[in-house]
């Protein structure tokens, strides 16, 4: 798949992501926020695709956009929205928020200005396209086997925890 109009799509998707991200934190209605977040995630998936990482893109869509966000929406829909609209958001933590945002901003600026020296110059060589998924797989199940298993154990614990918590209510 030869890329077409790469800069155009890159800027389009980035803009979409930024707008989505801003909407997530500015919308009062949580459902709108969630939908904005989904937009961001989908745009991100498209950027992965542009970076020749189709597998990550697919997983992003299936897991985040299709799975997790649906569950988010599920919960949000059940909560009375009228009340949350009236509430002021993050009213008690704005100070911490400002500090964190400044710190992050500083970091980004630092990376941007020093970027050339931090990273090797030029675009990374693209792996042969057909290998993508296999290489992810062999890395996951080979080199990073241990951390992969730990992560899955963590998820297992989370599942059991969720079941236990749900059972309590029954």
């Amino acid at each position, binding site marked *: 798949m030869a890329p077409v109009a790469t800069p155009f799509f890159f800027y389009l998707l980035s803009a979409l992501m930024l707008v989505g991200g801003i909407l997530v934190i500015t919308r009062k209605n949580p459902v709108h926020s969630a939908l904005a977040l989904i937009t961001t995630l989908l745009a991100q998936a498209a950027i992965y695709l542009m970076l020749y990482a189709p597998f990550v893109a697919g997983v992003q869509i299936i897991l985040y956009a299709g799975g997790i966000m649906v569950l988010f929406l599920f919960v949000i829909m*059940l*909560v*009375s929205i009228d*009340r949350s609209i009236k509430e002021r958001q993050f009213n008690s933590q704005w100070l911490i928020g400002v500090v964190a945002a400044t710190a992050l901003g500083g970091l980004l600026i630092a990376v941007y200005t020093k970027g050339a020296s931090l990273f090797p110059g030029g675009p990374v060589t693209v792996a042969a396209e057909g290998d993508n998924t296999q290489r992810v797989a062999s890395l996951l199940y080979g080199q990073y086997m241990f951390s992969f298993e730990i992560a899955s154990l963590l998820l297992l614990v989370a599942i059991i925890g969720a079941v236990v918590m749900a059972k309590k209510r029954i």
Partner: protein
Amino acid sequence: MTNQNTLSHVDLETPEKPFLDANELVINMGPQHPATHGVLRVILRLDGEKVLGLECVIGYLHRGVEKIGEHRTYTMFNPYVDRMDYVAAVSNGLGYCETVEKLLNVEAPPRAQHVRVILTELNRIASHQLWLGTHALDIGAITPLFYTFRDREEILKIYEKYCGARLTTHAFRIGGLQYETYAGFEKEVKNFLNFFRPKIDEYEELLTTNRIWLERTKGVGKISAQDCIALGVTGPVLRASGMKWDLRKAQPYACYKNFDFEIPIGQNGDTYDRYLVRMVEMRQSVRIIEQALGALPEGPIMAKVPKVMKPPAGEVYHSIEAPKGELGYFIVSDGSTQPYRVRVRPPSFVNLQALDLMCRGQLVADVIAVIGTLDIVLGEVDR
């Protein structure tokens, strides 16, 4: 039997625990809802999909039949009763005619009684067919509806030929029948029976062993015989709970005591048992009609009743086994040509009371199934 009065009544007013405001959802089902069989309005209180309780709001079809009855002569009121349970109009007519006959102290001649039994049992089949079709449709099986309507058509044709009307037939008159059976009546009824017997098997093939049907109906809307009696629930619902009680046997009217038939009963009192009971009832109705046809006597079809009916003052309660349960008429006469008071004891109305009990703790989808299985007709509930 019902010494203790333990209705597992849950208090509808119990305040619910607030859980993210998400715990309770009040849903208004009806009066214009495809599955409430007419203008029944049910207010459901749900926890997610679980029913915490419900309240029926009825009366949308109230036409004041009882009031009308006080202002019509006995004969004039006869067609009105057809408009109550319009699915089983013939049964309604039978109940009314027999009650007035009791007041007048006359009895319909044997031939009339036999024809009455034939038509009433055909009506029971028709009513059950309609129930089966709509009930299955509520549970999501579309096809049985069309099968039952196809076969019900044959019954309606017989009615149409006999008295010119298909639905609100006004088939009987006080004291007997207005019309002699038409030529070929017996043959046509017999043909229908032969045509219909395999059709019951066809319905059963579609549903009785269908896994999804079993899952949707078994254990759904359970009600014990004890609760049935306490709530006055009669008909197939009571029988499916294991109570062997049918007015046709318990207090035979018309000429039912001449016929040999069985009362099907269920054990669990769930929706599936009610389904089975009604299926067997259709078969039994076929049996009764066959016997009645075989024993159809010759003779007059009308007893001696005065042109202007003035039953002596008095009051009478008489009830018959309508397809939906005990259908009773309580008529007070003051010696004039008009009833002083007509009270109809509609089976659907009383049976509907049990809906709340049967639905507690079930899911929304089960409410639909239970409304279907109660087999209510709103024309009769609201009168």
